[in-house]
């Protein structure tokens, strides 16, 4: 058995992990109806991207990826604040946080 893939952790591992996380997050966004879970899934997708950035940054030995991650985290924080606020207002109105209530906003 070739153990080199397991013992020698390299760029590929990070990328594969990030891809897995991204797909899990996307599946959550597409499938789940609960707004909180949706937000969590979005965070997951964002963080998988962060992981890719950092991995490439380390691999190439430049700092650009790190800087980009800070921006993404800031946006993620802002998005979480807005998203949760929406979730709260939905909950206050309908006593539930199901995504379908957003469809009532369709013009």
């Amino acid at each position, binding site marked *: 058995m070739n153990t080199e893939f397991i013992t020698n952790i390299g760029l590929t591992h990070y990328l594969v992990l990030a891809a897995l996380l991204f797909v899990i997050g*996307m599946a959550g966004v*597409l*499938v789940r109806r609960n707004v909180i879970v949706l937000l969590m899934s979005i965070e997951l997708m964002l963080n998988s991207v962060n992981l890719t950035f950092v991995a490439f940054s380390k691999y190439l030995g430049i700092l650009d990826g790190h800087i980009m991650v800070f921006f993404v985290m800031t946006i993620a924080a802002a998005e979480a604040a807005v998203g949760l606020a929406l979730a709260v207002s939905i909950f206050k109105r309908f006593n539930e946080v199901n*995504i379908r209530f957003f*469809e009532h906003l369709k013009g």
Partner: protein
Amino acid sequence: MNHSLLMAILILAPFVGFLINGARYKKHSGNVAGSIATVAVAISFISAILLVVDLISMPAEGRRIAVSFFEWMAIDKFKVNAGFVVDQISAIMILVITGVGTLIHLFSIGYMHHDKGVAKYFAYLNLFIFNMLLLVLGDSLLVMFVGWEGVGLCSYLLIGFWFTDKEKAAAGMKAFITNRIGDAAFLLGMFVLFITFGTLNFSELNALAPTVAESTWLGALTLGTLFLFIGATGKSAQIPLYVWLPDAMAGPTPVSALIHAATMVTAGVYMIVRLNPLFIMAPNTMMVIAIIGAATAVFAATIGITQNDIKKVLAYSTVSQLGYMFLAVGVGAFGAAMFHLMTHAFFKALMFLGSGSVIHGMHEEQDIRKMGGLKKYMPITHITFVMGWLAIIGTPLFSGFFSKDEILAYAFHSPMGSPILWAAGVVGATLTAFYMTRLMALTFWGKSRVSPDVHPHESSAIMTIPLIILAILSVFAGWIGVPHVIGEHLGHMPNFWEHWLHPMISPIPGWTAIDHTTEWVLMGCSVGLATVSAIVAYQFYVKSPETPKKIAESIKPVYNLVNNKYFVDEAYFGGIINPLINLSKNTWYYIDVNFIDKMTFWAGDLVRGMGSFVRSVQTGNMQQYAMYIGIGVVVALSFVIMR
């Protein structure tokens, strides 16, 4: 004074009158509005006189006052100026229009004083004078056409002046639409002339006239002049478009006098005389004009015999007299046509105003069967009417005599005329004498048939003064055109008229001087027959009123045919108007509603159907959208990678 200023005053004074009365038509009382309008036309008349005096002082060749105010339009080679010309022909017209116009305005003050819309009436009347001046003064066919349409509009407005009466409103529309048919032909004529000669300016057109007569029917000149003549039949009420004029009597009587006797209806004659060098080179057109004119003269006169409405009789008489003018034009006697135009303007305006005075004095009664013996109630109206009557039946030395006999002499002797045309003219003159005498007899003479609760009275001075002036003109106006054959017995009186018009009139090809004996014989024939027929009419309608009824009874089918105006209106309705309406209705229903509308609905439905299919993509479900994004990214990426 300078000519362009005078010309501007001449044309614009009535327009200013129209604006003043038109802007405040609810405020002005009858007398104020009437005074404004009359003064406006009188100012025009004075400037016309000043212009004509200047014109007379010019040397005979090149007598012409031309003023061009601005360039109206210039499209490539097609240039039209707002140019106006006073020359020998238009000088006569502006004097008649503004002169008779002033008298009729004056008369209207008395006639219309009890009407509610009197300021509006005077505004229209002023607008008419303005347009009529544009028509006669315009130096090109296009400027003339502006006036031509303008007088048509005013005619429509004034015929339908009492538009609350449906019949009168309909009469206005009939006049307008009939005129429109003629105007379409007039436009076609302009197109043909422009294509052929490259200009619409009168003096340029006349200078470009060919020197050899065009003998084909489809030559440009024949076609163009024929189209113009069809336009003239509309405006001047000739067969086949005369039907509107008798109905036009629905308008106020002074309007009938001004528009439908003295001025507007003569526009067609004037137009042809204006372009006489062109017309004389199209002998086929001339033949058509002469035949139509002669036919109209006789045809309308026969209808005139049977009518019982005082204005209708005069209307048919006008149609018939216009026929004479066209007969004159058709045989090349342009001067005689203008002469008759002028004398007719005087005596027919006089008789229309006289009938207005009668109608006014009889409290809106127009049926001559309910008149009779008005002589003693209306002495001034009667005397002036007698002058008009003597003039129209051609009593020697009255104005109508000179003009009518000149036309008849030309019809007989001109190479373009023929004894048949002359005979038609004499028959027309005989019939004219008959129906005019009948009108006189039934209205003024014989026993009174006035119903006891109507008290006829003479009109006020403001109405009788115009009558008196016109009566004087009707008697003496003919003296300026005394033919040589009579003139030589009156101390060698010269024919002023012929000298005046001579430079503007093209000579008739092949004309030889008329023999004096022939002229005397022709004159004797027409005067003799007219006298006999007037005496017969007098016998019939004054001495033994039963005779005409018996005669009418004995030839009942013929009488009914004539009395119903030969069923021409009915024929037009049955043959043209109703089929046209049906055609329009069917076109509307089958083509518009059932084809075009359905097509557009079908196209709309198609778009909507396609839209509703595409619309299903847009559900508002955010997760679905997210999926679209995902699929899109996958597709795009795989495209990039696979390449």
